[in-house]
């Protein structure tokens, strides 16, 4: 007997199938086309002189010698670019009361972080441009530096923005239920203050851009290594006053982004302006040192939180204060307050409790801006919540899994609204918890831990449940006035030879967007996947859409492709029905052949339909106009976000002599709804987890008191490398969203969301016999030894 048929046994059924990415072969052969590889005729190269001061007045700039250097074409200061570029302000209307100073490509009279670009040089080569930087003299006058949360909040302390009353960018409060009452009557209260170090994306390819202004055509083309070409088309058009239709942004292969490359950077805006001033292509690729001081950073939160529980261990309430220090500006156009906003709204999200209060304060300081980076806010909310749950478990004498089983929202209790205001359609915490217990072989790990402790080996086991925000509607940015789309568009054509081209607004950064879109199109049309070509990332070619960020590619882009494919299928079958003198409903498409829907008998290849429609339309019935290209847009409706959930676990060993932590194994059970390509989902989870482990153990942008980044190189800033990383065991639960036909949600943040929380809990678990605790990440060996009072 053969196994029962599943939906995957249907011909051309690609949804749910692990197939390799067609576009990965180019990259494996060294044939990627990254912006940093690009060379255009008459192209010049930009380099930037950066501020050595974290806060200073610019007294004078002398560029005469630099201008005179052979091979230098242009030296531009702030005023030169301010003449052609309108300023931008990183605020959004739905963050009521938030402020941020206007920004320009290069500053006019003041620098606000060490590393800020001050002067641009454009030359025949990057080397000559850098030589010219050496010839520029700038006189600065030091201003008081605000380099940490406390000094930024000090009353009467130095101000970052002259004219403002304080250094506060944004304040927000949530208050639901009766928090004071819950704490007053609680049997148990746990409380802790947590610190989350600044870290940064460290994409292997640094930021890269080539801007090409053609004064004859009045047209700007920007080859921009970004996730969001449409957003930048809009911004370049508006800030440089070029009609949108004459601005083209091309986002080709990109060496990693993770949210970092969707923000406006001063240098990128400057490069566009330099190209306009010169009428020639200008290229800029950040070097690694520049990346560290000018890419957005993330996190930098200090959270004070407490949790109230009753005598049985039922969570009653949470009360949270999140202080987060951004840069001297809020980032444009997505702001620097989204992370804090998500921290206070994701707090406690997996759990059933009603009373919640939170205060968020977003503070300016003289450092590079922070903004959205993979898993925005999630790791902080998750670590705080999950650590408090573990602390409560210890207090109550409960096992970490038991207290979670008791408090996680029941799988049959949906829809639910969290006390922070998020609406959950359907989550599967309990099923995930159960599955995690199995895949970890949790009881055996605990037994092993107890046994090893006897011989002075300290293993820790950490658990962290999480909720992830995916498929964002206009509630994310659009309502705040940002021209950032939450819809996507696709144009699908049947080519004359019977293949399909899909131009779609979601973009590829290596996660496999193009692969899953071709799977969905092939699946819905009834074609072999290799007959579908997907084209992304060119505003001149692909329809306007949100592109890829916040886990929207599969859920929203995928649904767009699905609906477009169904529309094209209808049109193909309509023509087929005319030719075959059948009802369209009596026909189907399998493997590129029109077949009888009932018998699957082959009637005619779709290539023949294409041939007739394109070349012999005279043989079709009069009045027939074949529509073998369809365009389709899809905007998410229903729930404002499609929340996903999951749970992670890890096992690690703490060397109490050296403070070193060895990751032994990591586990995740994840529910991202309909899985389109299991292998690609698993790889998103693995990559995300390792990014979270980096944050947990190594990564921190360390600053001196004077606001200097002291570890801004890849030799000094530690990233997770193969030797330190564990193997990762993955299991899935599938709860599709009912808001779309496809049912897919996102999975890109899930790994990063809970990995650091897991490690924090596991290290504390390992240190239990020593009565030592740790409440900040990264958990460096020094912090471990300090907790053990051995350092």
């Amino acid at each position, binding site marked *: 007997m053969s196994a029962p048929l599943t939906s995957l046994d249907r011909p051309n059924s690609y949804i749910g199938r692990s197939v390799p990415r067609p576009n990965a072969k180019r990259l494996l052969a060294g044939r990627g086309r990254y912006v940093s590889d690009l060379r255009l005729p008459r192209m010049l190269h930009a380099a930037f002189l950066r501020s050595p001061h974290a806060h200073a007045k610019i007294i004078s700039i002398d560029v005469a010698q630099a201008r005179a250097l052979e091979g230098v074409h242009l030296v531009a200061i702030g005023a030169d670019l301010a003449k052609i570029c309108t300023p931008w302000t990183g605020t959004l209307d739905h963050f009521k009361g938030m402020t941020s100073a206007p920004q320009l490509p290069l500053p006019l009279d003041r620098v606000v972080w060490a590393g800020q670009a001050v002067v641009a040089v454009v030359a025949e080569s990057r*080397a000559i441009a850098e030589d010219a930087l050496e010839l520029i003299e700038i006189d600065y006058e030091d201003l008081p530096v605000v380099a940490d949360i406390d000094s930024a909040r000090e009353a009467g302390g130095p101000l970052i923005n002259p004219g403002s009353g304080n250094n506060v960018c944004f304040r927000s409060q949530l208050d639901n239920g009766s928090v004071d009452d819950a704490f007053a009557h609680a049997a148990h209260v746990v409380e802790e203050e947590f610190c989350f170090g600044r870290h940064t994306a460290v994409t292997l390819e640094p930021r890269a851009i080539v801007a090409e202004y053609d004064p004859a055509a009045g047209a700007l083309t920007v080859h921009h290594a970004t996730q969001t070409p449409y957003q930048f088309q809009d911004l370049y058009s508006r800030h440089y006053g070029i009609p949108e239709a004459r601005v083209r942004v091309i986002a080709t292969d990109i060496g990693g982004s993770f949210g970092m490359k969707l923000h406006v950077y001063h240098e990128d805006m400057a490069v566009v302006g330099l190209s306009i001033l010169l009428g020639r292509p200008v290229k800029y690729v950040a070097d690694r040192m520049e990346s560290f001081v000018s890419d957005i950073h993330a996190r930098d939160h200090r959270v004070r939180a407490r949790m109230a529980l009753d005598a049985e261990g039922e969570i009653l309430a949470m009360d949270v204060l999140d202080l987060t220090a951004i840069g001297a500006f809020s980032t444009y156009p997505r702001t620097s307050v989204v992370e804090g906003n998500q921290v206070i709204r994701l707090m406690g999200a997996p759990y059933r409790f009603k009373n919640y209060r939170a205060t968020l304060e977003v503070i300016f300081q003289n450092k590079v801006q922070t903004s959205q980076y993979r898993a925005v806010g999630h790791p902080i909310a998750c670590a705080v919540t999950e650590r408090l749950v573990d602390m409560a478990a210890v207090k109550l004498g409960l096992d970490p899994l038991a207290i979670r089983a008791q408090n996680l929202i029941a799988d049959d209790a949906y829809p639910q609204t969290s006390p922070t205001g998020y609406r959950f359609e359907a989550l599967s915490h309990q099923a995930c918890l159960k599955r995690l217990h199995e895949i970890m072989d949790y009881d055996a790990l605990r037994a092993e831990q107890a046994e090893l402790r006897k011989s002075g080996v300290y293993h820790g086991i950490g658990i962290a449940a999480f909720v992830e925000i995916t498929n964002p509607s206009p509630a994310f940015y659009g309502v705040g006035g940002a021209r950032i789309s939450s819809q996507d568009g696709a144009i699908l054509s049947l080519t004359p030879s019977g293949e399909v081209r899909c131009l779609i607004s979601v973009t590829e950064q290596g996660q496999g967007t193009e692969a899953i879109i071709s799977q969905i199109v092939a699946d819905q049309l009834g074609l072999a996947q290799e007959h579908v070509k997907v084209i992304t990332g060119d505003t001149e070619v692909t329809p306007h859409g949100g592109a890829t960020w916040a886990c929207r590619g599969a859920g929203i882009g995928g649904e767009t492709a699905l609906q477009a494919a169904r529309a094209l299928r209808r049109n193909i079958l309509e023509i087929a029905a005319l030719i075959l003198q059948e009802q369209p409903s009596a026909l189907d498409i399998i493997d590129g052949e029109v077949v009888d829907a009932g018998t699957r008998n082959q009637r005619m290849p779709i290539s023949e339909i294409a041939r007739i429609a394109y070349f012999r339309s005279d043989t079709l019935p009069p009045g027939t106009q074949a529509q073998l290209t369809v365009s389709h847009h899809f905007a998410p409706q229903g729930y404002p976000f499609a929340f996903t959930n999951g749970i992670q676990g890890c096992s690690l060993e703490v060397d109490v002599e050296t403070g070193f932590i060895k990751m032994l194994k990591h586990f995740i059970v994840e529910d991202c709804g309909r899985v389109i390509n299991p292998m690609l989902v698993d*790889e998103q989870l693995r990559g995300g987890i390792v990014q979270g482990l980096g944050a947990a153990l190594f990564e921190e942008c360390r600053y001196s008191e004077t606001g200097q980044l002291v570890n801004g190189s890849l030799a000094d800033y530690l990233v997770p490398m193969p030797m330190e990383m564990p193997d990762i065991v993955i299991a899935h639960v599938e709860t599709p969203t009912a808001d779309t036909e496809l049912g897919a949600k996102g999975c890109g943040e899930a790994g990063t969301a809970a990995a650091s929380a897991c490690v924090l809990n596991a290290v504390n678990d390992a240190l239990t016999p020593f009565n030592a605790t740790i409440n900040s990440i990264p958990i460096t060996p020094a912090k471990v030894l300090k907790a053990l009072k051995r350092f």
Partner: protein
Amino acid sequence: MSGFDESLLDDADETVRVRFVVNGRKVACEVAPRETLVDCLRNALELTGTHAGCEMGACGACLVQLDGQAVHACLMFTVQADGARIDTIEGLTESGVIADLQAEFHRRNALQCGFCTPGMLVNAHELLSRVTQPSREEIRDALSGNYCRCTGYEAIVDAIDAVAKARSESGGAT
């Protein structure tokens, strides 16, 4: 900097003729003494498969084979490579010596953005030419100078492991 010494620029303008064998072909280049090998490969020779990630030998994106050994092209001046045989990802692809590694990386999706991939492959190729059946631990150790932000490394380790086993079974490598 009023005390700027004009002779510095003269030095920068000077070029040196360098000859080497790149991907099996004899090549001559006029390079500035300060130019690194990675810049020469990427710019003058248009071999953009070799990537610059950190420019200080920490990330492995620029690994190429120099006289059969994996070296960081960002840590070498082009002039130091005079007379050497250099094989880049492009040459290793064309010759087919890493075809099984590339196929296995593809099958297991052991790459995402692909920026680290050429360096990973050069390093994996070198490892498997030294050790026929490395343990997972040895593979992770060998890759400990190759940074990948996307994959979390496991699929890369799996792919190299699988190729090592397949090569041993087919008796190809000794």
